[in-house]
């Protein structure tokens, strides 16, 4: 059952990722990315990462991608279609490089971690309580830095977005 779910979700993720990188319209790309994210959320559940799975849908597929869609609709981008890459040779070269990277990395990882024991069912793994208690003890500093990061991002987004072209004469 788990294996079946893995293959369905994994296949879905790869398929929608391929749709993303080949799409020419931003809306299609955003929709494929959302599909990928849902598939990944399913995989997280398979891996007992319940909190992260929920956050994946709420934050990533929800908030972040809705922001993307908002911007796409707001701008109503009418791009000239058709041209995907600068040149086909470069495209092929890069694709080969990318595919090569997959195998190199996957293979090199296999060597280091050959057979791992599956985690025991000792404690409720990946629940809100477990992750939360780590977040506020061991990882307090990154958590606080993240709050500063969000502040800087909000300020930046506001001033960049409200800038008028009229007051931007060189």
């Amino acid at each position: 059952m788990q294996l079946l779910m893995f293959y369905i979700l994994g296949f879905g993720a790869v398929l929608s990722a391929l749709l993303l990188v080949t799409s020419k319209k931003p809306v299609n790309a955003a929709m494929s990315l959302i599909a990928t994210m849902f598939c990944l959320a399913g995989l997280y559940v398979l891996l007992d990462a319940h909190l992260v799975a929920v956050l994946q849908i709420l934050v990533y597929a929800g908030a972040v991608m809705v922001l993307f869609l908002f911007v796409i609709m707001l701008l109503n981008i009418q791009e000239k279609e058709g041209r995907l890459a600068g040149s086909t040779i470069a495209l092929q070269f890069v694709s080969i490089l990318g595919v090569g990277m997959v195998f190199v990395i996957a293979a090199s990882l296999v060597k280091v971690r050959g057979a791992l024991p599956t985690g025991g069912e000792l404690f409720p793994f990946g629940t809100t309580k477990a992750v939360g208690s780590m977040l506020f003890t061991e990882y307090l500093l990154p958590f606080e830095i993240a709050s500063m990061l969000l502040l800087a991002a909000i300020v930046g987004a506001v001033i960049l977005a409200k800038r008028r072209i009229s007051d931007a004469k060189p």
Partner: protein
Amino acid sequence: MKWMLFSPEIFYLLAALCFLLLSMTGRLHRRRDHHIALALAVAGVAVCVASLQLEGSLFSETYKIDLFSQVFKLLLSVGLALVVGICSELRGIQERYEHEVYLLLFPCTLATMLLVSSIHWLGVYVSLELSSYSLYILVALRKDWTQGIEAGLKYFLVGVFASAMMLFGMVILYGTTGTLDVKQLAQILPGLMSHAAVVVGLLLALSGFFFKLAVFPFHFWAADVYQGAAHQIAAYIATVSKVAAIAVLVRMVAMLGGSSDYFVHVLAVLSVVSMTVGNLAAIAQKDLKRLLAYSTVAHAGYVLIGILSMNPGGYAGAIFYAMAILVMKFTVFLVLVKVAWDGTNLEVDGLAGLHRRSPLLAMALMVALFSLAGLPPTVGFTGKFLIFTAAMERGHFALVLIAMINVVISLYYYLLMLRAAYLLEPQEQCSPLSLSAPIKLLAGALVVVMVAAGIFPRYLMDLARNAAQGLM
């Protein structure tokens, strides 16, 4: 009082919040804001000096305070104070956003300080992102909005791509060792360095800092971003941001580098390519800031030589070079800001007649260029000397030879700038530049520092050595 250990960071956090409040009041007093920023930045230097001798660790041993981190915090605070010092006329940025410039500069400096102390990948990642985001926004705030936004977009895309690479490296290290703590990693990793995956993971995990330092595969943002950003922001990127990147690279390589030949070879290749690409590209540049950007790429290559020597001398050399870069690059940008006072970009030929328009600035430029090129009585020479001798000790003769050739190549374009400043006559009559007394004092002080640190480097060298000693 464990919180005393954290005092520089707390100070910069409060300073940033102070500007948040000021920006919410909405009213703009340009002079007042600049004075507040300058006062806070100078006070920050004082706080960093006071906390120079502190030692300890915080946050469940994920945050280390030692001489190394405190020396770099001092350097970063000095860098911020210098950059704020030339922000008195932010012609490159619209007046409406001046609060925000300070509001973003202070958290960015805070983030770089967190970076030099963090010894946990998560802390490193989040603070790197904080410093990057502040800079993406600052670059995009250029008054000439086309240039700023385009440079900001390029910086953003390359930066996010580099951080994805970095995360992939971190996850490989996590998977192969089971820990995210750099200190635990330092104990496990030496035994695993023969695995290709570990070396690849480590290199990828450092790629975020290669990006910050503008090392070869991640260097192509530098020229556009320097050109597109306001002069003051470009000065900040060229000094503070670089110093922080050097700090993290030195610490991580010192803790994790071990004795892997592959790792050293890859770093050597990156160093050679960075030097050569940077110097050759710099020759072709007309725009002064683009030229400086490529010279930064070349300097990143020199610093890498010190780091990959992996001996105390090499680390001390890299630390010393970070100090040198801070002063030299800042001096050139000081001249740039004053000559291009209206905030537009400056061609190299635009320096023409500088020796008559302002002899002091011309002299500062000359000393800074000599220092960047590595000519003897300056701090740049001492830095290069320390790095090259450390590399020779480890037998990297070929590497040092290539670096020497590169130094000669770089001499060409530095002399070209000097020729523009001293020998070329300006096309139209230019009025003398009027400098305020503090700026004159600053320029004079920088010249004195560059020469004095070149002739009597003893104190700074000892400081760098002691800081490097704590790393091993």
